[in-house]
């Protein structure tokens, strides 16, 4: 069954953003809400919601044009539209009567195979379908998205006993492939999986902090990075969620859960938080929460004891890399971390099989729903299950049955990752067809080639995978060496090469540390070598006798973007943030980035004719260090070609890239070299005018102009005449000269050092 058109009812924050994610998948959506009182525009709520989506950061749309795929309407005049939709998602207020009344109306218009789902986070499915005819129950399920739906990978799906299996399968597949979600099947239990554990964890975090007298900063610095939990920790996350939502969530959980459930002990809202809500301090969407920016935009935090705001002090990051050490000291901080995390992990363990039959699903829910780097059971393995249980016994706390055997919860057997079941036996983790993870491949065979920065793996069917694995996947001489070795290896033993890694970011670009060192030594020969080697390596990649498919996700900046530009094809994860950002560190792209990016515009058919537009366009992107905020935007910026592919689900990226590579193998011919008919000095003059006008407007510094002038010289073709086209190597020489010139400027060094130190560009 295909999902060709959907409707979302309820244009609140979630409903509207869910509609946006459908538009990102290329599926048109109706967005309906009620007709507001006293208005002439009956669609005003949905229309305003779409306008708000366009202004929201981070952007719910992968491309602003996607907004056109959403049609606003209202539930009084436009229910008839629903006759041709294949999925209706209800995201209205959490009141069963209102939802049920809506479902009855929906069934009257929707076709019999239309999926009807609720985005409820608190109401059980059995309550929602109570008393409804079987025909509705057969079409009905809960699809619980996490906020913000574009970025949070979890989709919890709850089906009832009467839900038609083929509809469940349709949603699972669509959510996975088109929406890019990790769709997990949950039982019909309160809070499903992620919030059941997540809310418990947050509540423990608040109550224990008050009990032990920790500041919110102390609490958040502990219950975050050390455990692979986002920096927002407990209180920062509560500010994001909105404190005002907490009382109703707690009420619904304590009401729905049994009296014995451990949640009951922690399910009360402390007075301090009640007071904050009453005073309107409900988090980031209001005047502040546990944290706020004062009138001078300085960060403040609340004193949990007194309720007064004071300057925020970031405590020193814990130096204990070892979780046992972190959790074992007698310091209050350590006690806090232990209390919060031990309770949470034990609670999670006690919920198997109540909320899920296996630990893999629970770990996935916490990773994808709360952005934890590791799920609760992975964390338990990291701190040592036996150690954990021993300590529980010392503290005379009940040990959940799942942990009593003190065995590892995950282990690898004959190259396969396995997880423990309630019986104590291990079961292998099976991936769905179309899901190939590099991590799985790495468990199966040793690397074909490897050094400290990169490795080459055999991912089957004649395709090799080149993986970067340095810090932030920064590219250095080792990366370059491994690319060259890989080219030789693939030439003789494989049919194609995929460049991919499963880190958060594909590559942050060249390793700046090396460059800075060379500058301090005034060793310009080394700089020149660095550039020449990169240019030659990337060129060898481009002209390799086999297809090279890059499969990036996350950041692909500078040198990381240049490698994309030299690939035969790209299969990108939808969340791709790529750009030639070298000017930010006082440089220009030197590994063929100018050359390749210019080529994309020289051969772009939609540009006005004449010698100037390609140069002007390439200049605008590189001089302003434009970075795509999605793969769709990368396509618009021509970092991706029209024929390059986009994969919504990161877990499918490697498999998609592999099939793309294989599809290119038949009769593969490396590309023909490009010739560059460039305008020469006249373009340099024009670009200089543009840069100066930006400076006059206060949008560029004097040094920005120096860099822009070097970039303009390269992109214009130097002193060439438009009747004499340049070769690729000519453009590479221009890149090299400009790069070496800029590297010798003190302002460039200052930019480089600032970036390395702070991670942010310096505007000198």
């Amino acid at each position, binding site marked *: 069954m295909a999902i060709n058109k959907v409707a979302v009812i309820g244009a609140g924050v979630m409903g509207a953003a869910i509609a946006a994610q459908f538009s990102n998948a290329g599926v048109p959506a109706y967005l309906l809400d009620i007709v507001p009182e006293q208005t002439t525009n009956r669609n005003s709520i949905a229309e305003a919601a779409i306008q708000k989506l366009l202004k929201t950061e981070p952007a719910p749309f992968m491309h602003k044009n996607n907004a056109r795929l959403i049609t606003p309407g209202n539930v009084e005049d436009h229910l008839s539209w629903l006759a041709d939709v294949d999925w209706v998602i209800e995201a209205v207020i959490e009141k069963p009567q209102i939802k049920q009344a809506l479902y009855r109306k929906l069934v009257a218009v929707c076709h019999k195979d239309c999926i009807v789902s609720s985005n409820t986070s608190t109401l059980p499915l059995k309550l929602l379908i109570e008393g409804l005819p079987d025909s509705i129950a057969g079409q009905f399920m809960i699809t619980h998205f996490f906020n913000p739906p574009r970025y949070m990978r979890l989709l919890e799906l709850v089906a009832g006993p009467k839900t038609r299996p083929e509809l469940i399968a349709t949603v699972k597949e669509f959510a996975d492939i088109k929406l890019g979600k990790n769709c997990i099947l949950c039982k019909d239990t309160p809070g499903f999986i992620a919030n059941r554990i997540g809310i418990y964890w947050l509540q423990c975090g608040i109550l224990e902090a008050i009990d032990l007298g920790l500041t919110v900063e102390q609490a958040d610095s502990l219950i975050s990075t050390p455990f692979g939990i986002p920096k927002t920790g407990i209180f920062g996350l509560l500010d994001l969620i909105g404190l005002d939502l907490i009382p109703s969530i707690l009420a619904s959980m304590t009401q729905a859960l049994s009296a014995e459930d451990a949640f009951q002990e922690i399910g009360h809202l402390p007075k301090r938080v009640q007071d904050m809500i009453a005073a309107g301090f409900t988090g980031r969407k209001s005047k502040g929460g546990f944290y706020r920016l004062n009138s001078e935009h300085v960060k403040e935090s609340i004193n949990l004891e007194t309720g007064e705001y004071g300057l925020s002090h970031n405590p020193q990051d814990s130096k204990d890399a070892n979780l046992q050490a972190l959790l074992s000291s007698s310091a209050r901080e350590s006690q806090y971390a232990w209390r919060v995390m031990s309770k949470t992990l034990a609670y999670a363990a006690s919920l198997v099989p109540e909320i899920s039959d296996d630990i893999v699903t629970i770990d996935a829910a916490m990773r994808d729903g709360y952005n934890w780097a590791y799920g609760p059971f992975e964390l338990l393995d990291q701190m040592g299950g036996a150690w954990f249980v021993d300590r529980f016994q010392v503290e005379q706390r009940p040990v959940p049955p799942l942990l009593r055997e003190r065995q590892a919860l995950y282990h690898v057997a004959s190259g396969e990752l396995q997880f423990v079941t309630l019986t104590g036996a291990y079961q292998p983790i099976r991936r769905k067809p179309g899901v190939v993870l590099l991590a799985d491949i790495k468990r199966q065979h040793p690397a074909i080639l490897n050094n400290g920065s990169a490795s080459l793996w055999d991912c089957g069917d004649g395709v090799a995978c080149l993986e970067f694995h340095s810090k932030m996947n920064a590219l250095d001489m080792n990366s370059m060496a491994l690319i060259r070795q890989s080219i030789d290896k693939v030439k003789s033993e494989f049919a194609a090469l995929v460049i991919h890694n499963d880190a958060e970011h594909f590559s942050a670009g060249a390793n700046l540390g090396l460059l800075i060192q060379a500058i301090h030594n005034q060793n310009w020969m080394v700089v020149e070598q660095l550039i020449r080697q990169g240019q030659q390596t990337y060129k060898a990649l481009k002209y390799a006798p086999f297809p090279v498919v890059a499969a990036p996700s996350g950041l692909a900046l500078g040198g990381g973007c240049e490698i994309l530009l030299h690939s035969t094809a790209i299969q990108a994860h939808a969340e791709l943030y790529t750009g030639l950002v070298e000017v930010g560190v006082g440089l220009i792209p030197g590994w063929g980035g100018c050359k390749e990016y210019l080529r994309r515009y020289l051969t772009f058919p939609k540009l006005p*004719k*004449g010698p100037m537009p390609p140069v002007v366009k390439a200049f605008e992107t590189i001089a302003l260090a434009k970075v795509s905020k999605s793969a769709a935007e990368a396509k618009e910026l021509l970092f991706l070609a029209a024929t390059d592919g986009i994969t919504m689900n990161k877990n499918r990226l490697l498999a998609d890239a592999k099939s793309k590579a294989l599809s290119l193998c038949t009769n593969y011919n490396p590309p023909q070299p490009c010739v560059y008919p460039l305008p020469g000095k006249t373009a340099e*003059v024009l670009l200089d005018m543009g840069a100066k006008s930006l400076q006059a407007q206060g949008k560029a510094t004097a040094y920005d102009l120096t860099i822009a002038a070097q970039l303009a010289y390269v992109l214009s073709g130097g002193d060439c005449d438009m009747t004499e086209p340049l070769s690729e190597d000519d453009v590479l020489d221009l890149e090299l000269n400009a790069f070496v010139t800029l590297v010798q400027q003190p302002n460039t060094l200052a930019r480089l050092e600032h970036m390395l130190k702070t991670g942010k560009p310096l505007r000198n």
Partner: protein
Amino acid sequence: MKNVVIAGYCRSPFAPAYKGLLSKVRPDDLVAQVIKGLITKTGVNPDDIEDLILGCAFPEAEQGLNLARLIVFLAGLPITVAGTTINRYCGSSMQAIHVAAGAIQMNAGEVFICAGVESMTRIPMGGYNTMPNPALYESFPQAYISMGDTAENLAQRYKIDRIDQEIFSLSSQQKAYLAQQQGRFDDEIIAIAGMNKDSCLRPDSTVNDLEQLLPAFQKNGTVTAGTSSPLTDGAAAVLVCSEDYADAHKLNKLARVKATAVSGCAPEIMGIGPVAATHKVLHRAVLKLDDIDIVELNEAFAAQALAVLKDLPVPLDKVNLDGGAIALGHPLGATGARITGKAASLLQREGKQYALATQCIGGGQGIATLLEAI
């Protein structure tokens, strides 16, 4: 010498570039419709037309080739009508009128269509392939100075405060809005794609709104988007013929062309161009500034218009009676025909004796036309 008269004027509605309703209309189609409208409105016999003289500031792409000749075909004019495209940037279509007037007086034709067009949406300012001469840029960079910078230069030299620019702009908006409300544009606008109202106007803007705007060209400057003419799509046309011809064919004579002039000035203060051109045209007409009853002074920028008015002290109630380019818009090639046609029809409407139409021109020029009541 023969007398030259303006015997008809009309234009398209002016719409903001990119987001306006004319953004999807090709400029050749746009001006062809205006010319058809002019033929109908004046009742001139198309077979008598000598030449279509068309002004355009960036004659390339859809405005390229010999646009005027193509428009002869598009407008369904007889094949015997010739066509020439001329470029004096913002003064292009006023120049078209000057060329026609000269030709009539040397007996090189009786009837001319003088038109102008610019789609600033479809052909960007500077065109698609601006290729400045590197040597000239080195020795005389102001040859390529941006228009916004010239306005800032005038604001500085003539000490024109931002608030004065804002008051001038608001007044232009209010005059244009009033004229629109009272239907005073209705008989000059030819409906295009069902649209018959100018849409650049911002009648709701207040001094407070204008104060919020950031300087558009220079960080510490005074010129904002609110005190500049907007990028505009539009077309305009006038019928220029000998007075004898108009009389013989009973055409509605709006005004007589009494004198014309062009002049050059420093490019970095191009906005002051109308001053020298006006002095010349007054001298040629043997008139004084005080003799002028109606002035159409193009408002490229409020700072620029105010600088001109400092050197040419004309009472404000004689200037741009129905608003100017800051409110109505400034489709470069079309503006000259608009303000000359407007000045001619204002002479008739207001029952006055002399009108002056004048404009500044990028690169450092001024152009002026002196009209006299019939």
